[in-house]
């Protein structure tokens, strides 16, 4: 992977508490799976940075290698890879996502 892409990803996931690599923007997701994760984060009132990988082919490939994860979306919390759409939804349903965010010091809206 291009070192500048890797550095850029590291920079983004360390300077933002919650980062979502996605297709499209949080306002206009271009994929149902990305939209589902945006919906979960929005529901929880979590402030996050959405990064549209469709805008940058090198990032689109680079994030897959960086995370060792072949699909988009990908959620990072405090620099740590949490998972894709299935995992985020499962963790949300079980309450683990809310717990993880709280444990990491990210503000979550009370249910």
């Amino acid at each position, binding site marked *: 992977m291009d070192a500048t892409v890797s550095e850029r990803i590291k920079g983004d996931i360390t300077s933002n508490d919650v980062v979502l690599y996605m297709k499209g923007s949080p306002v206009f997701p271009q994929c149902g799976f990305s939209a589902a994760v945006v919906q979960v984060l929005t529901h929880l009132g979590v402030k996050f940075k959405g990064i549209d990988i469709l805008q940058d082919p090198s990032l689109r490939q680079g994030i897959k290698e960086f995370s060792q994860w072949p*699909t988009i979306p990908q959620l990072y919390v405090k620099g740590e890879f949490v*998972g894709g759409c*299935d995992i985020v939804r499962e963790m949300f349903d079980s309450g683990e996502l809310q717990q993880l965010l709280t444990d990491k010091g990210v503000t979550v809206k009370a249910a």
Partner: protein
Amino acid sequence: MTVAETMRRKLTETFRPTRLEIVDDSHKHAGHAGARPEGETHFSVEIVAAAFAGKTRVERQRLVYSVLAAELSDRVHALALQTRTPAEDPPRG
């Protein structure tokens, strides 16, 4: 052999699942990016196997992705995954 059959064979050989359901959701994504007129691009997979015990969700999905790497890099555009151990599998019906 269809893509679904190939995935079933690979997953069965690797994980010896106690339950494996592969659903082709491609018709729901007709016309979307990554869809093909002939289908078999979007799948949902539910797999229950003892091999997942003691592994995190991320580790489990990485295992499945690695087994299906060829399919994911070629034909399969989206793969929704549920990975559980037999103990975690809720009773059916």
